[in-house]
């Protein structure tokens, strides 16, 4: 009797655990972009959520067109993914050049306002250019046969989102630790003036950061949209706010911090829903944020630094 009870309790716990991990990974894919940009130029790129939305839309359009021509599913996923990455990164690159670069030496508040303006602009641009309706996102990720016995706990899309997040984080860490551009990024993050003096092209580094961040958001857009099965022009806003919260929670500027913060946020929301009430999901998530910031103002893995001059 006790054992049955125990299993029932464990089962539920594991279900909630995975739903939290999925949610956390979703946040992480977007949070990485926030944290990288902040790490390099100290700017909160509020238009990042919109880049994610544009990635999802690009994937939607490409996938819809390709499926009309009867391409096989795998090639649709790859082509739509590549298209989304290219399109989103070109947006990220352009936004930086138009909205942030001219303000690089302006007071910190100016690029922030510029970012919010960019976010509103992109949202309304997609609203007008596309549609205000919710659109059904095609099922790009089919349910795998071998997942069927555990589909009630963790579905195929959940698994792919989890795996992608891990892979992306590992690749990103390798790039930043060992590659030349990664070293340049770290140098720029530490001291932009000094980096310029030793011959690093800071402009290229910043552009590269935006391109990498936007690519991640585009991959996130594709995966998340095929997980929840619908998109509209507004999805970037809520995703952006939550991912930004996660990035702050983990310590903005820190890449492992963004992933850790996202997972903690996702798990908190999931367990709060499961064991307390989904009415208080956001209350728990943001109370946690406040608590952590009170005791560790720079976030979980963030380094306390002096104000950069």
């Amino acid at each position: 009797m006790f054992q049955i009870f125990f299993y029932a309790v464990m089962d539920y716990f594991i279900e909630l655990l995975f739903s939290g991990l999925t949610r956390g990974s979703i946040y992480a894919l977007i949070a990485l972009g926030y944290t990288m940009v902040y790490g390099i130029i100290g700017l909160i790129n509020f238009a990042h959520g919109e880049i994610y939305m544009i990635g999802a839309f690009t994937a939607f359009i490409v996938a819809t067109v390709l499926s009309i021509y009867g391409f096989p599913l795998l090639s649709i996923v790859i082509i739509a993914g590549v298209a989304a990455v290219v399109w989103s990164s070109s947006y990220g690159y352009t936004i930086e050049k138009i909205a942030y670069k001219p303000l690089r030496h302006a007071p910190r508040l100016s690029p922030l306002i510029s970012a919010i303006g960019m976010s509103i602009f992109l949202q309304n641009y997609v609203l007008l250019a596309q549609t205000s309706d919710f659109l059904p996102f095609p099922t790009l990720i089919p349910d795998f046969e071998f997942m069927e016995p555990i589909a009630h706990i963790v579905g195929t899309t959940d698994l792919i989102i989890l795996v992608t997040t891990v892979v992306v984080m590992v690749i990103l860490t390798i790039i930043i630790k060992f590659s030349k551009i990664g070293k340049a990024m770290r140098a720029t993050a530490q001291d932009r003036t000094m980096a310029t003096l030793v011959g690093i092209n800071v402009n290229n580094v910043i552009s590269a950061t935006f391109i990498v961040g936007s690519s991640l958001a585009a991959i996130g857009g594709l995966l998340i949209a095929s997980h929840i099965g619908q998109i509209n022009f507004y999805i970037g806003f809520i995703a952006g706010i939550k991912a930004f919260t996660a990035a702050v929670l983990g310590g903005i500027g820190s890449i492992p911090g963004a992933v850790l913060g996202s997972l903690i946020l996702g798990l908190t929301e999931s367990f709060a829903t499961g064991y307390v009430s989904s009415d208080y999901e956001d209350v728990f998530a943001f109370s946690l944020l406040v608590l952590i910031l009170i005791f560790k103002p720079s976030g979980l893995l963030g380094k306390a630094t002096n104000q950069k001059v």
Partner: protein
Amino acid sequence: MNLNLSGKILTTVAGAFIALSVPVSGFAGDTIKFGVAGPHSGDLASYGLPSINAAKLVIDKVNANGGINGKQIEMLIEDDVCKPEISTNTATKLVSDKVDVVLGHICSGATKAAMPIYTDAGILVMSPSATSDELTLSGNYPNFFRTIAPNAAQSPAMVDFAVDKLGLKKVAIIHDKGDYGKPLAEGAKAYIEKTGKGEVVLFEGITPGAMDYSAIVQKIKRSGADVVVFGGYHPEASKIVTIMKKKRLKTTFVSDDGVKDDTFIKVAGKAAEGVYAAGPQDNATNVMATEAKEAHKKEFGADPGAFFEGAYAATVAMLNAIEKADSTKLEDLKKVLQTEKVATPVGSINFDENGDAIGVGFSMYVVKDGAYVVVK
């Protein structure tokens, strides 16, 4: 001298004009200004646009036949995007444009926000879709009427259907914490507790727009519910049924007229199959409804959308009241609306003292092969 005389004549003529332009029988202008307010853009536009079409069909017909008591009807269309903070602007705009009656608003939250402005201005408002109880039953808005049954009637309809007709006793009630969904869910809960039929095993609010609802779906599964009763709109409903399908949960899903929309089926796809939703009563046997539908097809080349019949009925009822009362004053219109029956696509209706249409109810629909069909 000469000049002086012509000056006097001018004054007299001008005076005569001013005197003539004073309203004779309660009409303010020489056209009747008919406002249409609701979401005409944004993600809930599919609820608002059909009411414009409905009003246009009725008004074009009336205008072609010489208008009402010799006056043409002019439509003033304002968008509120279904947002309370915008609907107050919409209402102010219509009132300052001296609108005589208003068809709308569509969403309960937006309607509630806009109503005080119309109430102060003494303008008749009739909604085809706002179902919040408070709008009529609170008595705060004596100028509010509607051609749809209130939530107070919708919640029992949903529960009766799930428990009596489908025989599902354990009910999980989920809502979107909004002005429309929450009272509906609370009404369902109160009704189950009052009548003692069925059992509420879960009562929760979800955050609209959240990225993933798998935690709440797991909770529904754990609660052992036979049926989910959802109060809210279709974007959340389609996300929930999609996740339910992904998590292999076969619990029946019963929802409200906020989900009875073709966008829900389009977005949720296969996951929508077998979902039940309450909706404005089925008027397939009503001749006027059939005619209105045909007229819509002819004029706009498509089947009418959500709340079309209700909007058509509201337009007919309001214009009828203006004609019978020969006035656009609120008191005169109310008297006609409450006493005289008028034939509309939702049946021959008049209104009770709260403003609710008498004899209008709900039907239950189910998604079958990608379309809503009436459950007999």
